[in-house]
């Protein structure tokens, strides 16, 4: 029996970090090459966000709190949905390009793959949301005086974790259903949008939807973000709101990895791990 050459933990970490960077660099290159798509998506997002903001503005010119409530909703959702979709589409995208077999055949840990994908998803989401904020700031009075921006940033970082977990679980769908899996991920994101209080308070929802909102990480992200920005709540006081987020993240990321690993093996048993459907 042959023996694997053993690397020191530092060397192993360095090797995995380089492999993770491969995904960041690749996705960045893809974003640059598909710049036309990026502009189209940004215009679509900006127009959607502005429509929501104009609905708020129509409720009364002086209600800046409502505008800020909606701005937080649309920006946070834009970010979280971007993180989710970046993760959930990673298999569908590679299948579309025809590269899935090469990536799955490469000698990298699946965790390394996911870490690289997550790092890019977060960077991409932040840049996209910052651009969106810039667009909204040109048209609406978004007053951030008194806001706890450090607390808001911490909330978004912790919130990203759980959306990465949901995204990994979502990525299983294109693995299992080559032709319709990508579309099925939209169901997850649309339900999260519906029940999480992105544009309205949770208490206007029917009881059963309110129950669903308790397991959506977006509910807690938005709650903490609004407390930090609208009310200026201190970071320490935000911690109880962040705790459920942390718990959901610590559950969904390992759960997502386990689910992905299980279905990757299933795809290999059934011959679904290939470029075409």
């Amino acid at each position: 029996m042959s023996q694997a050459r053993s690397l020191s933990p530092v060397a192993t970490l360095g090797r995995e970090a380089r492999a993770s960077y491969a995904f960041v660099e690749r996705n960045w290159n893809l974003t640059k090459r598909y710049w036309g798509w990026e502009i189209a998506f940004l215009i679509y997002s900006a127009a959607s966000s502005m429509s929501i903001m104009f609905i708020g503005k129509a409720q009364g010119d002086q209600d800046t709190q409502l505008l800020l409530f909606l701005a937080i909703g649309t920006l946070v959702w834009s970010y979280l949905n971007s993180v989710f979709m970046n993760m959930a589409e990673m298999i569908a995208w590679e299948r579309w390009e025809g590269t899935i077999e090469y990536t799955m055949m490469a000698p990298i840990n699946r965790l390394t793959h996911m870490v690289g994908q997550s790092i890019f998803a977060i960077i991409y989401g932040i840049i996209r949301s910052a651009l969106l904020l810039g667009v909204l700031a040109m048209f609406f009075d978004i007053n951030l005086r008194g806001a706890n921006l450090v607390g808001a940033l911490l909330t978004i970082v912790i919130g990203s974790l759980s959306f990465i977990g949901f995204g990994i679980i979502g990525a299983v769908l294109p693995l299992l259903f080559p032709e319709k899996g990508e579309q099925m991920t939209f169901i997850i994101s649309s339900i999260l949008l519906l029940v999480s209080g992105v544009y309205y308070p949770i208490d206007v929802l029917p009881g059963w939807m309110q129950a669903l909102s308790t397991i959506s990480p977006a509910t807690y992200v938005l709650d903490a973000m609004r407390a930090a920005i609208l009310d200026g709540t201190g970071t320490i006081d935000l911690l109880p709101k962040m705790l459920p987020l942390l718990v959901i993240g610590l559950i969904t990321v390992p759960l997502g990895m386990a689910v992905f690993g299980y279905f990757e093996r299933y795809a290999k048993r059934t011959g679904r791990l290939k470029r075409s459907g």
Partner: protein
Amino acid sequence: MSPQVLEPQAPETTSVIGIDLSIDRSMLPTIAEHGPAVVIRHASKVFSKKKRRTLPFRRTPEEPQKAVRALDDISLEVQRNEIFGILGANGSGKSTLIRLISTLLIPDSGEITVFGYDVQANEMQVKRLINRVSVEASFFKKLSPMENLLYAMRLYGRTGEDLRSEITTILGGLGIKADRINAPLEQMSRGMQQKVAIARAFLTSPVLLLLDEPTTGLDPRSKKDVQKFVHELRDRHDATIVICSHDMDEAEALCDRIAIMDDGQLIAIGTVEELKQLVRERDGLASPSLEDVFIALTGRNLTDDHEDNPAEAA
């Protein structure tokens, strides 16, 4: 005029890739000094193919799943440093076999080892030792050859300042002009894309290279380049090559031994001469070509299609 005695020509030594790239294999898993490169013992694979339902969400008892036996109890060994060919018609199971070796499929039964590493139990070590070039070049179409190859090299743990110059050198050696290296790959011909695929495989320093119909659809010049490259990889870089092909001339020119597959079964295995001898003795053909051998042993042409084999459709 008296007949001219020709001096035997020296073997061609020009490298297809133009330079003598040294492959760094220090990061590869240790492999034993002796023993075969690939051992396949009783490998079988069956795919179930669902029949389309007449009504949504309703499965009726008269719609059983159709089973396709893609591989049926295959056993073979590929020796180190060998160029081993697999010949078979579409759907014969040859691509399924390649996908099993390359860890993209899990066998239903049997055992497959690569340099002593089991493809299931030691998946990561096997992945590090192999690479594959398939019939489709399989790249990110909008990315350039440079961007695609950088991605591949980083996935295989390659690092350092000289990655870009290494990529430029190997692509230049394969006849790809400098101004194409940073242009989107989709603007290149299929032959050029396949050369980039070969460069990708080479740059990840595989000990076992799996070539799944790498020259299908290429022009004669590109075919020759690929064939020279295969010989070079074996002769100068100590690699073992497994190649699936439709092309009898290519198989005869390249392969030390050939396995003939039909309907998921291994029909015959041997050198080209051994296979021809088999048919000479069995069927009384005086000087059979490899195509005659294939037809005699399988009862069909290479261009015939078998029943649908889901894994062969890739």
